[in-house]
């Protein structure tokens, strides 16, 4: 087995692209918050980079991948604590994985997923949470919710297609693999449903911002948000096309599907806005981008490009409606983690059961248009449900524990005056127009 430097090159690139998504997210979210809380919003992403960058190396990889699975839910954190023994073989050579590139590059790729998933959650609890509480939450959540979910779906656990999976229990096993395997190409369950449910639970437990639904909380800088959306799209190529784990046709297909679905989702979202509100907005375009990217994530390798366009439109339309729900239901999911990531993640995960060209409601196992059975759909729904429940329960436990000890919220005065000042001792912009003057000569 020889090193495939082409695969290695693409995976190094993909890891870098996905790492960039978190600063991109910080801008996307930062632009949508108010000027007095933009730094705190961005710091929740950058803080997650700090915590999880360290934690992943120590026990994150080991809890996700390895040979010592605990009930198919997580792997023994001490099997390769600190990556010890995971990277080199006995002769000091880099261990290669099944795609013939070094496992250390897999570590690179996977740490970026853990970071962005955790950072995504922060949008649900913008502008009101102690930075210390967030940092502690990030470290615990990634450990108890993310690493297990990654193990279950990608590490051969319960939600995978391995012989010890739920799918194997339901559909039987051939040659050590479930006869019908769940499809989650790049993380519909692990990333988006996981983060979306966590956002919902946190929004409920932490409560609304003072004045939510009554006072204006307009995005303070939409150029930042659009820039963020652009960087997210760019980085998402690593996320999706990188999840082929090779520079090959599947990666190419995932790339094209990602772009087709995202473009379609922009159009879907804008058409809803134009009809419903009278204007197609730039925030709508930026949001449509993310909605499309989220929905295609689990599906990117399983659909054809025209199917991806359909998926994108559906996701754009669905999320454009879903972001309004919070006002009706009265929870303050500030930047719509639920409306975009949970809903988009569910749309994508479930639609795979309809649109997969490898046997689904609309395609036969041979890839021809026609009825291919309901099995894929059932298993997709099952993994979505398990993900929702697992993430919901774990997040609730962590959130309640933090509420009872450290407490989540800053004071109402701090919320009014702006969390940036109180939590970080800074303000994002200098200038009298923010009521401040820089004076010069003494």
């Amino acid at each position, binding site marked *: 087995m020889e090193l495939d430097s082409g695969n290695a090159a693409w995976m190094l690139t993909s890891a870098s692209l996905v790492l960039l998504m978190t600063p991109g997210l910080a801008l996307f979210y930062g632009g949508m918050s108010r000027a007095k809380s933009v730094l705190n919003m961005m710091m929740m992403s950058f803080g997650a980079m700090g915590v999880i960058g360290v934690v992943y190396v120590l026990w994150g990889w080991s809890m996700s991948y390895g040979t010592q699975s605990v009930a198919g839910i997580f792997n023994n954190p001490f099997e390769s604590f600190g990556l010890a023994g995971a990277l080199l073989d006995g002769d000091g050579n880099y261990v290669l994985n099944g795609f013939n590139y070094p496992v250390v590059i897999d570590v690179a790729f996977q740490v970026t997923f853990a970071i962005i998933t955790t950072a995504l959650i922060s949008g649900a609890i913008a502008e009101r949470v102690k930075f210390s509480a967030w940092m502690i939450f990030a470290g615990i959540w990634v450990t108890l919710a993310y690493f297990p979910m990654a193990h279950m779906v990608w590490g051969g656990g319960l939600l995978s297609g391995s012989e010890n999976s739920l799918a194997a229990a339901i559909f039987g096993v051939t040659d050590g693999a479930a006869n019908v395997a769940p499809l989650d190409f790049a993380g519909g369950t692990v990333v988006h449903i996981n983060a979306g449910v966590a956002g919902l639970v946190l929004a409920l437990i932490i409560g609304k911002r003072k004045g939510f639904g009554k*006072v204006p909380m307009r995005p303070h800088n939409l150029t930042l948000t659009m820039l963020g959306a652009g960087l997210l799209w760019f980085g998402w190529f690593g996320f999706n096309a990188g999840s082929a784990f090779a520079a090959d046709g599947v990666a190419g297909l995932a790339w094209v599907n990602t772009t087709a679905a995202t473009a379609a989702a922009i159009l879907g979202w804008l058409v809803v806005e134009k009809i419903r509100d009278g204007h197609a907005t730039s925030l709508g375009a930026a949001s449509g981008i993310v909605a499309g990217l989220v929905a295609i994530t689990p599906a990117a390798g399983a659909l054809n490009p025209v199917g991806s366009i359909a998926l994108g439109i559906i996701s754009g339309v669905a999320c454009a409606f879903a972001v309004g729900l919070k006002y009706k239901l009265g929870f303050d999911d500030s930047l719509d983690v639920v409306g975009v990531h949970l809903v988009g993640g569910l749309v994508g995960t479930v639609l795979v059961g309809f649109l997969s060209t490898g046997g689904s409601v609309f395609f036969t196992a041979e890839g021809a248009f026609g009825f291919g059975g309901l099995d894929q759909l059932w298993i997709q729904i099952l993994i979505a449900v398990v993900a929702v429940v697992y993430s919901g329960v774990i997040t609730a436990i962590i959130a309640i524990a933090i509420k009872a000890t450290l407490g989540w919220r800053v004071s109402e005065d701090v919320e*009014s005056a702006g969390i940036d*000042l109180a939590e970080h*001792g*800074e*303000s994002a912009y200098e200038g*009298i*127009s*923010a*009521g*401040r*003057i820089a004076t010069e000569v003494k």
Partner: protein
Amino acid sequence: MKLVTAVIQPHRLDDVKAALEAAGIRGMTVSEASGYGRQRGHTEVYRGAEYTVDLVPKVRVEVLVESEAASTVADVVVQAAQTGKIGDGKVWIVPVEDVVRVRTGEHGAGAL
């Protein structure tokens, strides 16, 4: 005629606007300002260097009114803007010799 000027806490503006409307005032001009007074500013630290920011954000509201309404309007503003904390601001009244509505050229009370 009089000009009633109020320098208030930014977050009281909505209430002041509503109270003035309720009192029959149909127009006002609003602008940003920074205030210096008893209210303490705060300290910010950037790479270890401390900056004291002692000008705090305020909003200035200007209302032109007929002379006899001036003190009532001032009271309305004071009531709506009051939180009881240091830094609530000031309201003052200045005499105005004439007012013109630009659109029509009307003078005096009719211009309001």
